[in-house]
C-alpha cells in the first residue's frame, strides 16, 4: 500500500509540475510570415539589428501556408504578435472580425506620415481604421525585354497600348513570337494572368473604377470588366502571340516564364511581370548585363488620362499591443530597417530609404517609379474576398484554356460577387 501511495504522490508532483511550471519571462515578439530563403536571411539581419539595439528577442515563424496557420491559430486563440501578410484580403477579413490592433494607437502617426505617403496608409486601412503597415512591395505591370535584341531588330519601346499591339502584330507577321507568359504557380496558379487583367483595367478606366471593381460594386459581366479580359485575351489566348501557345501559358511556371525572352537566340520578346522578376531573371541568366541586356518599361497607357502604378506586397498586422510590438513595428517602419530589403531589389514604401540603399540601376529605377507615381493601386485580386480572388485565378486558367467560355466564366464570377461581399 505504501508503494502505491508513493506512486500517486509522484504522479501528483509531476502533474503539478506541468501546470505550474513557469516559463522564464523575457521581452519577446513573435512574428508569423511566409518568408524563407534569401528573404528570410534579410529579415534575420533586421531582427538582429533590432535585438542589438533594444534587447528584445524576435521569434520568426515561417509558413508557406499562412492562411491555414492564421485561421487555426486565431481559432485556438493563439495568434502571433505580428503577422506579415502577403494578401490584403486576409487583413481585411481579420480586421472585420476585430482580431487586429489599430496601428494608429501603436505607432506615432505624425512620425510615420513623414516617411509614408498617405496612399500607403489608405491602402492599409479598413473602414477608416489603420490595420496594415506596408512593408515590402513589388511593382506590377512591368515589361521586361532585351534592349540589344530590340536594337538589332529595329524595334522601339512602345509608348502607347496601340504601339504595343502594333509591335506585337508586326512580330507575329514576321513569324516571331512577341510574348512570353507563364501563369502556373502551384495552388495560386492564375495570379500572373490576373495581374495582366488588373493592369489593363486600371489603364482603361482609372483608379476609381478599379476600386469599385475590387470592392464588389462593379459587375463582372459589365462591359468594362469584359473589355479588360478581352484585351488580355488578344495576347494570351492567341497561339501566335505567346510562346508555346495557350498550353504553354497554362503550364509554364511564372518563375521560368521569362526564359524564352533572354535565351539566345530569343524565342520571345517581352515578358510582363512584377519588379521581383528582375532578380529571378538575373539568377537564371547571370551573364545578362542590366540595362543594356535586361531592361523594362511600364506597360504603356491605354487611356492617356489614367496613369497608375499597380503594386503588390507584404503588409504587417499586429494582434497584440505590447510595448515590444510597438517598438518592433516602429523599427520596421523606419528607413534603417527598410534599407536592408532595398539592397535585395525590393521596393520599400518608406520614402526616406536613400537611393543609395538600392544597389543596382534597375532597382533604383523601380524605387523612382514608386516615389514619383501619382496614383498607386494595390493588386485588385488580392483585395477581393479570398473566394473571389481564388475563383478569379482559376477563371483566368479556364479562359486561356478555352477563350470562348469568357461569358460563362464572368457569369460565374458575377454570381459569386453577389454573395461574397457581405
Amino acid at each position, binding site marked *: 500500500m505504501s508503494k*502505491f501511495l508513493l*506512486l*500517486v504522490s*509522484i*504522479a501528483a508532483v*509531476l*502533474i503539478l*509540475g*506541468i501546470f505550474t*511550471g513557469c*516559463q*522564464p519571462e*523575457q521581452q*519577446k515578439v513573435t512574428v508569423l510570415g511566409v518568408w524563407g530563403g534569401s528573404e528570410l536571411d534579410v529579415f534575420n539581419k533586421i531582427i538582429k539589428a533590432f535585438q542589438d539595439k533594444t534587447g528584445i528577442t524576435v521569434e520568426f515563424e515561417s509558413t508557406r*501556408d499562412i*492562411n*491555414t496557420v492564421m*485561421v*487555426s491559430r486565431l481559432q485556438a486563440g493563439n495568434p502571433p504578435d505580428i503577422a506579415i501578410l502577403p494578401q490584403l484580403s486576409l487583413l481585411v*477579413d481579420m480586421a472585420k*472580425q476585430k482580431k487586429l490592433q489599430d496601428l494608429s494607437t501603436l505607432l506615432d502617426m505624425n512620425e510615420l506620415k513623414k516617411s509614408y505617403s498617405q496612399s500607403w496608409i489608405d491602402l492599409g486601412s479598413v473602414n477608416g481604421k489603420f490595420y496594415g503597415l506596408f512593408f515590402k512591395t513589388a511593382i506590377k505591370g512591368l515589361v521586361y525585354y532585351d534592349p540589344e535584341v530590340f536594337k538589332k531588330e529595329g524595334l522601339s519601346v512602345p509608348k502607347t497600348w496601340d504601339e504595343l499591339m502594333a509591335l506585337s502584330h508586326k512580330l507575329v507577321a514576321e513569324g516571331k513570337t512577341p510574348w512570353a507568359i507563364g501563369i502556373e504557380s*502551384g*495552388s495560386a*496558379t*492564375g495570379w500572373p494572368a490576373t495581374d495582366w487583367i488588373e493592369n489593363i483595367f486600371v489603364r482603361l478606366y482609372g483608379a476609381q473604377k478599379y476600386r469599385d471593381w475590387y470592392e464588389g460594386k462593379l459587375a463582372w459581366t459589365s462591359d468594362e470588366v469584359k473589355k479588360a479580359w478581352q484585351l488580355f485575351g488578344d495576347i494570351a489566348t492567341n497561339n501566335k502571340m505567346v*510562346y*508555346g*501557345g495557350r*498550353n*504553354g501559358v*497554362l*503550364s509554364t511556371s511564372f518563375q521560368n516564364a521569362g526564359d524564352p525572352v533572354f535565351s539566345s537566340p530569343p524565342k520571345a520578346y517581352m515578358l510582363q511581370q512584377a519588379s521581383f522578376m528582375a532578380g529571378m531573371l538575373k539568377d537564371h541568366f547571370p551573364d545578362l548585363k542590366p540595362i543594356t541586356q535586361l531592361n523594362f518599361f511600364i506597360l504603356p497607357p491605354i487611356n492617356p488620362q489614367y496613369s497608375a502604378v499597380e503594386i503588390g506586397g507584404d503588409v504587417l498586422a499586429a494582434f497584440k499591443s505590447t510595448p515590444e510590438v510597438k517598438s518592433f513595428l516602429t523599427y520596421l517602419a523606419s528607413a534603417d530597417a527598410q534599407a536592408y530589403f532595398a539592397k535585395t531589389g525590393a521596393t520599400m514604401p518608406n520614402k526616406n530609404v536613400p537611393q543609395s540603399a538600392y544597389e543596382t540601376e534597375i532597382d533604383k529605377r523601380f524605387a523612382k517609379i514608386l516615389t514619383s507615381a501619382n496614383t498607386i493601386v494595390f493588386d485588385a485580386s488580392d483585395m477581393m*474576398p*479570398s*473566394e473571389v480572388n*481564388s475563383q478569379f485565378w*482559376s477563371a483566368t*486558367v*479556364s479562359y486561356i*484554356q*478555352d477563350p470562348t467560355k469568357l461569358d460563362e466564366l464572368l457569369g*460565374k464570377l458575377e454570381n459569386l460577387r453577389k454573395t461574397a461581399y*457581405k
Partner: protein
Amino acid sequence: MNLFQIALALVFMAGIPIFLVLYLLVAEKLAAGRAKKRKRKSLLPWLWLAPAFVLILVFLIYPLINTTVLSFMNKDSTRFVGLENYRFVFTNDSMLTALRNNLLWVVFFTLVTATVGLVLAVLMDRVRYESVAKAIIFLPACISFVAAGVIWRFMYTYQPKGAAQIGTVNAILTAIFPNFQPQAWLFNPIFNNWALIVVGIWIWTGFALVIFSASLKGIPPELLEAARIDGAGEIKIFFKIILPLMSQTIIVVVTYFIINVLKIFDIIYVMTNGNLGTEVIANRMYKEMFTFTNFGHAGAIAIFLLLAVIPVMVMNVKRFRRERSG
C-alpha cells in the same frame, strides 16, 4: 524557452503512460474496496475503457457535433442559416464538379487499382523473381502523395512542339511517334482528370498487389493441384477457385480504397488545385475552410463526406460480423 518546451514535451511523453498506469491501479483499488465481486467484474472493463472513451469523446464525438452545428451556421458561425450550406453542397458549380469527379475517382480508381493489383499478384506468383518485381511495384506506395504529385507534375510537363521535351510522358511519346503533338496533360479538360487518376493508381497498385499476394499464398496448393488434375484450365481455376477464396480480401481492399478515394486530396491539391474541372470534395473543403474561412460551407462538406462514407463502413462492419459468427 525552447529547452522549456522540450522539457514539457518529455514530461508529457513520460507522464501520460505513468498517469494511465496509475489510473488503472487507483481504479482497481477503489473498485476492489467498494463493490461486491460480481458487480466488480462488470464494472472493471468500463474502468479500463474509460480513458479511451474520453479520448474518443474529445477528439471524435465533440468535433463531430461541433462540425454538425457549424454546418447549419453562416460563414463565421454567428447566425443560423438552416440548410443553406447543404444547398450549396448540391448546387454550387465547383461542388457539382467535385461530386462528379469523386464519383469518377471512386469507380475508376478502385476498379483499375484492384484489378491490376489482382492480376499482377496472380501473374507474379508464377515467376522466380517475384519478390523483386513486387518490390518495384510496391515502391510508389512508400512515397507520400505530395511527393508523388510533384514527381508526376514533372512527368506531365508540357513543352511546345520543337522544344526539348523535359516531361517524361511527352518525351517518350514524341520519341516513339515523331508526329505526336505534345499534350498539356494537366490542362486539357478532356483528359486531365484521367491524368490525375493515373497518379493515384500508380501509388496504390503496389499496396493492392501486396495484400492480394499474401492472400493468394494462403490458398492451399493442394486445392489448385487437385483442380489441375481434374483437368481445369488456369483461367477456370482463377475464376472458380482463386477468386472465390480471395473474395473476402478483395472486399476489404475495395472498401479501403473507396473510403480513401472519397477523401482524396493531396494529389489534386499539389497538381492542379482543382483548376479546369479537376476539383474534388476534400480539396473544396480545404479551400472553404482555410482559404475562404467559410466554416459553414466547410462544415457541410465535411458532414456530407462523412455521410457518404457511412454506408461503406456499415457494409464492412456487417460483413465482419457475419464472418465472425459464421
